[in-house]
């Protein structure tokens, strides 16, 4: 509305009133100029009607004429296209129509696109590729900008021409890396094991496996940098599995030099059964303290289509003890699933190992998932929660939240 107003004002100022009248302005928007423009418009109408002068179908001629030569070229070669090429062409048209479709698509991606079981799956996959492309482009642009800026500052520095002296050589990254490796190597012999159960490949889609591996790589990185790292075990790891392929994509040649233990054996074969604890959000048991003598198992699984009880079933089958993080005990849960990403798990376990402080460890739970830490009595927290929600949401939702808070307190009292 406002922009339209501004626009109209501009038009009036530039004294093209007849145009403004044709433009079909809203009466109440612009009461002052109305009478003025109307009278002008009437005169205009009599003198010359713009539509008479305009050839409205001129665009058709342009569209048809400009192509006459091209047509003769394209028509004969319109033979049967291979299905891949046809799909590529359709994608091109979708892009022209303004859908979220990537500009470039590889043969492999095109095949996955064609293998999608439904139209909505195709759409989703294309959008994913499109966003990926967009992010990549943006990153590239940022890097280039940075480069330019650096060059500029270098030029300025060379003008002043002042050499700095420093007692340390610039080998920071390298020496840090060496120190970390040293620590992890130590943990390989003396450290507490942490097992990643790599037996969930069948339960996951390709993208979920890729996400899983990404999360593990992040987790491994933070483990390496920690003061007292775990000795990471990948159990049930099959060579040439999807996991393996994804890991190689991430680590490249470093995969062979990683300071972790990778085995195709099950954890029950590697460790004594009574020391194992399977961590799963579905577990009825809640972890009270971090035990330095136990071996914790984390299921390497990302489940976007929530499959409950998969890892609990695995632990049940092997007769292992299970545990869940005490999220409800320490956090006033807001929304979101209780299963955390693997790198968050790694952060939490590392912090617990170092400090044993739940509050510090659970800082790594994403902030959006909880409202705050449970420090006050529960009923007070409930009050603030409902207050927050009445402020944030409508009335109807408040009732839902109340119900939730009620259930929540019930759960607490049960434990």
């Amino acid at each position, binding site marked *: 509305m406002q*922009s*339209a107003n501004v*626009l109209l004002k*501009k*038009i009036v100022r*530039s004294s*093209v009133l007849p*145009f403004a009248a*044709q*433009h*079909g*302005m*809203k009466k109440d928007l612009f009461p002052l100029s109305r009478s003025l423009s109307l009278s002008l418009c009437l005169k205009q109408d009599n003198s010359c009607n*713009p*539509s008479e*002068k*305009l*050839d*409205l*179908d*001129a*665009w*058709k001629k*342009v*569209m*048809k004429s*400009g*192509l006459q030569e091209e*047509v003769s070229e*394209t028509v004969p070669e*319109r033979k049967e296209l291979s299905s891949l090429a*046809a799909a590529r*062409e*359709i994608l091109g*048209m*979708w892009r*022209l*129509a*303004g859908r979220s479709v990537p500009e470039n698509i590889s043969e492999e991606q095109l095949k996955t696109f064609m293998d999608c079981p439904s*139209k909505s799956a195709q759409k989703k996959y294309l959008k994913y590729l499109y966003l990926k492309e967009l992010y990549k482009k943006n990153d590239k642009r940022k890097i280039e900008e940075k480069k330019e800026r650096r060059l500029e500052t270098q030029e300025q520095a060379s003008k002043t021409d002042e050499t700095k002296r420093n007692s340390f050589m610039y080998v920071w990254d390298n020496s840090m890396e060496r120190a970390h490796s040293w620590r992890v190597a130590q943990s390989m012999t003396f450290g507490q094991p942490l097992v990643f159960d790599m037996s969930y490949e069948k*339960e996951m889609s390709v993208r979920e496996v890729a996400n899983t591996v990404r999360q593990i790589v992040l987790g491994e990185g933070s483990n390496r940098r920690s003061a007292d790292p775990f000795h990471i075990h990948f159990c049930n790891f099959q060579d040439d599995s999807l996991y393996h392929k994804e890991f190689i994509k991430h680590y490249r040649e470093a995969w062979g030099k990683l300071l972790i233990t990778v085995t195709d054996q099950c954890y029950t074969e590697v460790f004594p059964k009574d020391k194992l604890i399977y961590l799963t959000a579905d577990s*009825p048991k809640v972890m009270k303290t971090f035990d330095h003598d136990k071996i914790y198992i984390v299921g390497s699984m990302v489940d976007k289509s929530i499959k*409950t*009880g*998969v890892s*609990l*079933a*695995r632990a*049940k*089958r092997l007769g292992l003890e299970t545990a869940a993080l005490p999220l409800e005990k320490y956090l006033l849960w807001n929304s979101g699933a209780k299963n955390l990403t693997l790198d968050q798990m790694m952060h939490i376990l590392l912090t617990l190992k170092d400090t044993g402080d739940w509050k510090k460890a659970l800082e790594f739970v994403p902030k959006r998932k909880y409202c705050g830490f449970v420090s006050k009595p529960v009923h007070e927290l409930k009050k603030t929660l409902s207050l927050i929600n009445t402020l944030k949401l409508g009335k109807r939702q408040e009732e839902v939240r109340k119900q939730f808070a009620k259930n929540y307190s019930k759960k607490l009292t049960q434990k």
Partner: protein
Amino acid sequence: VQPPEKPLQTEEWNRLRESFQSPERFEEVMFNNMVRCNSPIDVAKSLLTHVANSNGDIAYNLLVKYLALCVQQGQTSEIRDVYDIMKIRFRILESGAYNLFIRGLSNSDQWRMALTLLEEVKKNMIPSRTNYESCIKAAIRHQEMNLAFELYREMLAKDLVPTLDVLQAFFDFSRDMKGAELQKELFGILLYLRENQMYPHKTFMWSIKLWFESIPGGNWRGHLTNIKDSGQCPVCNHQLEDSDLTEEEYNNLRERIIRDVIHGTDTFRKTSPQEFEAFQKFVENRLPFDIVIDGLNVSHIKPRKMHCENLFDAVNCLAKENARLLVLGRKHMLGNSSNWKREIMKEMQNKADFFFAENISEDDAFLLYATLQSGKHCKFVTRDFLRDHKACLSNSVTRHLFRKWQRGHQISKKMFLSVFIQQPAFRYDCVVQTTGDTWHIPYKDTFEEKYSYQVPRKWLCIQQK
């Protein structure tokens, strides 16, 4: 921006464009608004001319938007022109443009063109159900019933679900028409409704009724009615089909429940093989039961009462007439706690058989198994809709069977004050049904909100005199 009311000259467009905050998207935004305000087509043309003159070309998305405007206003000749232009310009078109072409042309006298376009779409992708809908409706309107039914069958073969609108159109346009073949096809549509447990809405129901009554020499009469709880039609005194499954369906459902719901991908997810085996043995030794009760669900009926008291009331209420009861629960019910008193539990165990599953097992799966194993007369009590278990079933046929069986065998209890009022399980099956000389068709009111678990209570009874 408000689109202008009259065609503008190039300079005027230019001026408008410059005053727009992001000139590079000006045409796009303007076209969107034209579609929204249903602007006169000449205005859009003048903008296209302006774009063509200044760029020498018009982008695909602008053409599609112009096309949308033409379709909205039913400008057939323009649609044809746009089609010709697009055909020259682009080797293939995408689905959005095809949708518009098919929709626009099928409503015009050039509807056969829409059919050729449908063929074109088929070459590259599966047409949407609205594509078929437009073509079928066009064919019906022009009394090409054979063609319409051919398209309809083709659509079903592609697993597309026709809208009720299309089905209704078949009935609307077949009124007063003769032909055994046509009659058979329309009966086929009614049977499609039956198989997919779809219910016509009120206006559709009227179309069906009028069609039946218009069949020359058919002597059909339709009446609107409500079916009694006994399942008898008050108009023709015909007894509706009961909700029992056939022997084959019943066995099929039972096997599916065991395979998909209890075992699933991993037996350990819901129970454990040992526990399930123990339960199977337990059930087989005591078969058959008359009523299977979900103990934990029933024990939460009244929140103010102790859990075991609720359960006690339910068992007492159901234990009349020597009914054999099975109560399913979890082991934690046996521990003496504030909600579960040992003496009351003991007393109940005299009146009913109890099975206690592990605390982390799912007792619902056992409930289904025990009920199905006991036979067709056996009912079960829970307020749960069992949606998650239905979702575990792997195909839609079995899911329908499950719903049907559930309707006939689930007793859910509503509490009024302190009295148990049983909501009886349906005795009759709520689907389109026929005996040859009668048809019974359940329908829903046009604006009635119906939950998926609810079935309509209103019926159309059609009989041949």
